[in-house]
């Protein structure tokens, strides 16, 4: 037997859950799209085995179209400045060809979308593991990606290495 107070409680709980779900769905569309694009980028950058030339070039092109043209980078000491989409394809191809295996894991993230919902900043903590010459290397970095909403969807227009802990000059 279900009594009246239980029915009221159940309806209240259901209303709250439905309200929260609707709010999450309406507010989170851009967030989900950006995170999907980021997952796509991570997946494309990853490499699990030696690739044929054509497959590697196709991947490099797929990576490059996730960036605006031009894109700004501040990833010292590896890559800084402004780069065209063609440059990015070349860099992605070069980077991936240097390693036998590459995996990137986004360990944490924080996404902030501008009030006009046309740009966003995605702060991430990324862990990269790569195998080169039979040896594994690993690096953990804070990476900030700036995203722009374009006719082609959300694209990365800037990538920068950041760090909560700032090393003293000269070290």
């Amino acid at each position, binding site marked *: 037997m*279900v*009594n009246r*107070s*239980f029915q009221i*409680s159940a309806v209240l*709980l259901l209303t709250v859950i439905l309200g929260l779900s609707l709010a999450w769905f309406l507010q989170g569309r851009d967030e989900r799209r950006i995170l999907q694009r980021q997952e796509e980028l991570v997946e494309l950058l990853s490499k699990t085995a030696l690739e044929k030339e054509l497959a590697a070039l196709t991947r490099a092109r797929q990576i490059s179209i996730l960036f605006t043209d031009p894109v700004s980078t501040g990833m010292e000491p590896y890559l800084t400045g402004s780069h065209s989409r063609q440059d990015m394809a070349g860099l992605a191809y070069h980077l991936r060809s240097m390693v036998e295996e590459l995996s990137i894991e986004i*360990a*944490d*993230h*924080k996404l902030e979308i501008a009030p006009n919902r046309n740009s966003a900043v995605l*702060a*991430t*903590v990324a862990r990269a593991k790569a195998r080169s010459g039979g040896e594994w290397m690993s690096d*953990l970095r*804070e990476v900030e990606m700036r995203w722009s909403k374009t006719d082609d969807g959300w694209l990365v227009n800037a990538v920068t290495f950041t*760090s*909560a*802990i*700032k*090393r*003293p000059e*000269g*070290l």
Partner: protein
Amino acid sequence: MNSGFRRLIAGRSLTTTLWRAAGLAVITWILFTQVLTVCRLDGASMEPTMRDRSVRLVNLLKYRTGSPARGEVVIIRAAGRRVFYLKRILGLPGETVSFENGQLFIDGEAHDETYLKDQGIWTMSPVILKSSEYFVAGDNRSVPITRHLMGTVERGRIAGGLLW
């Protein structure tokens, strides 16, 4: 349903049990997102004081009212709420921090670090901290200074202190 089993699952009143369960869930959520957090170390930065892969409990409220003190181990927020840096506070806002052959100097005066097992041979030119900055480093001084993540951190990035 067997009445004994039903009593075990739902208690005397299903409504009361549901509200209690919801209350417990909310309290647990608040406790482990706003008050405490469990973290597992990944890396040798704090060795040998704290072993790689050891599990630690962090108090997220520790610095809501007070400020970090020298020698305390703190967690530093990177991005999001899952990954933190764990470091020891060496320099406080406004101080000048330097190292000479492993010896820590604060405002030009030698400062003993009793928690260290190996003082190392770090040498670093004086760094003047701004009013909102702390100087942090790990306890593993056997790593060359150029390969150890240490330096200044903004007060707002310090998210809590180590409980144990």
